[in-house]
């Protein structure tokens, strides 16, 4: 498992042409794009309006599909010219052949998935590599709010406890332990706070965590 805190590879990130479709630069997309090889076949789980797929298509010339449950998002994907399969992630990825993708991405959706173990298992099944990003519950501002006696509400976790879709929040440490227990070998990690990459004490200072992993050989 790769646990060392790598320095920011700014070259990787600045190399990426910012697609015209991205009205505002999404640093989280750039992290993912930096990991994706040009021309790769990508599956984006919970793809929303397809903006990550658009970004990757223009930055990395990828092909592939998004999976999305919400009607409005599916329509937005159509409008963005993104291949989308309307389907519930919770019921698995039966539509997809084993080992049929180079990357399967779960971008800021892990914490909202009910059957976390199954989705990670399915990701490892359909793809050579998995990429996951999620808000780090161990972020210091979250910790402070819990210390003060409240559930955290922040930029990365913008919901109240009673209306949050985020039912499975975790910290960097939690996720790494989970990977170890579920046959996922972590290949790379990036931790961000806003536009900035976090190298020091990532579990405390990182707002958003990114992991690239593969099936434990």
């Amino acid at each position, binding site marked *: 498992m790769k646990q060392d805190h790598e320095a920011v590879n700014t070259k990787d990130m600045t190399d990426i042409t910012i697609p015209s479709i991205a009205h505002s630069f999404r640093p989280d997309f750039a992290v993912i794009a930096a990991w994706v090889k040009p021309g790769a*076949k990508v599956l984006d789980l919970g793809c929303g309006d397809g903006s990550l797929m658009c970004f990757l298509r223009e930055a990395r010339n990828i*092909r592939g*599909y998004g999976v999305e449950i919400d*009607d409005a998002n*599916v*329509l937005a*994907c*159509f*409008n963005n*010219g*993104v*291949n*989308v*399969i*309307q*389907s519930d992630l919770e019921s698995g990825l*039966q*539509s*997809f*052949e084993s080992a*049929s993708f180079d990357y399967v991405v779960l971008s800021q959706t892990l914490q909202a998935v009910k059957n976390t173990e199954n989705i990670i298992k399915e990701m490892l099944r359909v793809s050579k590599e998995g990429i996951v990003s999620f808000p780090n519950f161990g972020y210091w501002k979250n910790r402070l709010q819990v210390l003060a006696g409240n559930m955290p509400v922040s930029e990365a976790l913008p919901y109240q406890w009673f209306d949050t879709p985020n039912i499975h929040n975790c910290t960097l440490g939690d996720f790494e332990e989970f990977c170890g227990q579920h046959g996922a070998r972590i290949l790379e990690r990036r931790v961000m706070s806003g536009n900035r990459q976090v190298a020091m004490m990532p579990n405390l200072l990182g707002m958003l965590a990114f992991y690239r992993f593969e099936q434990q050989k």
Partner: protein
Amino acid sequence: MQDSNSIGIVEPQIVRFDTPMHLKNGTVLDSYELVYETYGELNTARSNAVLVCHALSGNHHLAGFYPDNPKSGGWWNNMIGAGKSIDTQKFFVIGVNNLGGCHGSTGPASINAKTGKCYGPDFPVVTVEDWVQTQVRLADHLGIDQFAAVAGGSLGGMQALQWTLDFPDRVRHALVIAAAAKLTAQNIAFNDVARQAIITDQDFYGGDYYSHGVVPRRGLRLARMLGHITYLSDDAMAAKFGRELRNGSLAFGFDVEFEIESYLRYQGDKFADQFDANTYLLMTKALDYFDPAYQHNNDLSAAFRAAKANFLVLSFTTDWRFSPERSRAIVRALLDNELNVSYAEITSSHGHDSFLMEDRHYHRLVRAYMDSIVV
């Protein structure tokens, strides 16, 4: 029927083909005619043509109306027109009555030149593959090398699928709506009950009812009533009719009492007045026989290896005759072949008939997809 975006008055055209057509069942049709309608203009690059294939009881009259009958709106008027989801300002849209039909194309009720009589039961059993072959000839006649899209719902969706398999270079996009890559046993069973209703009608005369000056009305009516039940959902029927009584109280008899009975009988009568029983038999057989995976050891993915088109696959949540699961099977086969495909499962209460209904989300999806097609 006329609305602000309607394409207005339309006129069907007929084309005759004298090159023999070899059908899948081994017979040869020396000549035949197809009736078709077009909407919009074919562009100079001839790249904006869209073929819309019809379902069991549909025909070539997709949109607009006939001058002598303002109520003669096309069956997909809500989808096709200027500014509509399939926009006739962008696309040149073609509707064709399939071979074996009863709305102007050569079919069982047409005169067989060899005998001087109606074909009747001698008209060959045609298949989806045969229809695609005849549609290709129509495309050639119209000077269209490649369709921007071939679209259809139900049996029409099967034709769109077949196009991508038989003529992968002649179709860029396929819109496959409320369709299936093959019928289930239950579906074939429904079709056979419908056929039995017609065939056992004493006015059927082995399919030669034309020469007896009658039509097997009772059978056709029952077939339609049965079909209609399966095209609707339990919920839609409950919402529309419930247990409403026509006259407010029970009559303790067998005449029409419940509103649903009245509705079904009306639909049956209307259909029996305008549809040919032999055509109904042929259309249901084409449905039953469609199974592109069959010659690939029942491997649908292998069947789609030939396809190159981009696909839009749509299903409706309450469609139990062509359920979302059937559409998902198509999607899986397309994904296995790394084809461009988008799939949406539309929430609708109208069962299989949903594909004909006005629905905001459904129409927006089709519009968004059609907008993305480069012509």
